[in-house]
């Protein structure tokens, strides 16, 4: 395991032990005890899934150099011209 991978695993464990209950308490959600273990494992798996996205943005390999992405709607800007991409 590389240092980087080890650090990620530590982060995942930290979520499980400390941050997840804190976050849930802040959220106002009363999470049943039976959910906590499943939730922490799922969150760690999701964090591993999302890690390449953060890495890709950081190292530029997935960066997007187009216009700002404030428009989070996936509707396409040229739809009013009947699906033409020219505008």
């Amino acid at each position, binding site marked *: 395991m590389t240092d980087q991978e080890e650090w990620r695993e530590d982060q995942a464990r930290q979520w499980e032990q400390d941050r997840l209950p804190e976050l849930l308490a802040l959220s106002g959600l009363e999470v049943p005890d039976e959910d906590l273990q499943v939730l922490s494992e799922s969150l760690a798996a999701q964090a591993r899934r999302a890690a390449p996205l953060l890495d*890709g943005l950081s190292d530029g390999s997935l960066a997007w150099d187009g216009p700002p992405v404030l428009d989070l709607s996936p509707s396409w800007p040229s739809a009013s011209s009947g699906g033409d991409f020219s505008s």
Partner: protein
Amino acid sequence: MAAISAADDLTVASAADLLASGKVSAVELVEDRLRVIRQTEPAVHAYAYVAFDLALHAARAADIERARGAARGPLHGIPYAVKDVFFTRDMPTEAGSRVLAGFVPDSDAAAVRQLREAGAILLGKLATHEFACGQNDPPTRNAWTAEHRPGGSSAGAGVAVAVGSALAALGTDAGGSVRKPAALNGVVGLKPTYGRISRLGVLPLHSSLDTVGVVARTAEDVGLVLDALSEPDPAAWSKPSSEASEPRRLQSKIRLGISDYFFGSDLNDEIRATVDTALREFGALGVKLVPVALPALRQTLAVGFTIFLAEAGASHHRWLRERPLDYDPRTRRVLELGYCIPAAHLVAAYEIRARIKAELMSVFRSARLDGLVSATLPLPSADARTTTAADLSKFLPYVFPANLSGQPAITLPCGFTSAGSPAGLQFIGRPYDEKTLLRLGIDYQSRTDWHTRRPPLTLTSDA
């Protein structure tokens, strides 16, 4: 009833012809579909609620209108059903959850209202995974193989149309939830452009992904329903123009992109063979197939899951706080997980989603594409006895891109595996260019008979 003795071959279009010619009344047609519901429900459990009396009442009114010469169009008297996440003013909307048990909204969803205005007859509400989350196991069975999963979350829509207990159905599609059950049950499913159909009165789950979709037996039928749903979503940033309703080109000029992303090692060999055969069919029609590279699609699942979870958690925050124990635990946990997604992950997902969308726009433009073509799903239906919700992510890679980009996408039945599971062919189109997808589907279905195959159900005697 002789005119509809071949009930299993009925489509929206053929039923509309029977109604228009006076060979069948709306009451007869609805009574016939209610008979099919009684026969098939014990086996497939596609419906959450059947409105026997309301449907017949509406059918009588439709017949009176037609007798006065006031038929409203091709959907006048056509029986259909909606996923139980659409508000209906006269029947419960429970979304498969105890959270909404007994809830009857004050008004119809905009899509339901438009179909009522078009004269269509609502038969009832269709089963769904709880709040369309895809985590629990609704009772719905696959129309072709009872032990297999029917696909979700619009499971009831795919199954009801496949067995003929509705001639058409509305569902919702945020991660393939219309196309998956349509493909796995051998029918047509359209996810229109994001914002193309109003979501007013549809229980929200994923604000930037949710799209109202249509399921029917033929592409022609899907087009007839889509034509009646002309009211765009208020959240749409742009609206379709009238010229967008016409196909862009003649069939012989159509250009379809083929990307390695959709033909990788995850694609089942038998599904691949059905798609190859379909592509040869399109080649014979003069459609040009163009290889294209879409490297950003490799991030589809990481981006899609992150957005999917976070938006679902946000949508349910209030009920999660107030009524956590009324959720199925599997649904609750995934919603809680969504609430815990780090903001940095979500921002990264939105940014890379913009890259995916930009790449698709660029490739469509540079290669002058009318669409992308792929299998709808890489795998045939899964055995419910040996799989869990966690296995279902394997069904997402080909359907999720169109949700992330907002493009329209359609699935057409294109064959079967050796075990008898239906396979689906997917086209992803240009924004607001649903008509080209429907044209492709209509032409394909004029040359093939996959859409005429019916599930080998053991029916219950007529009640």
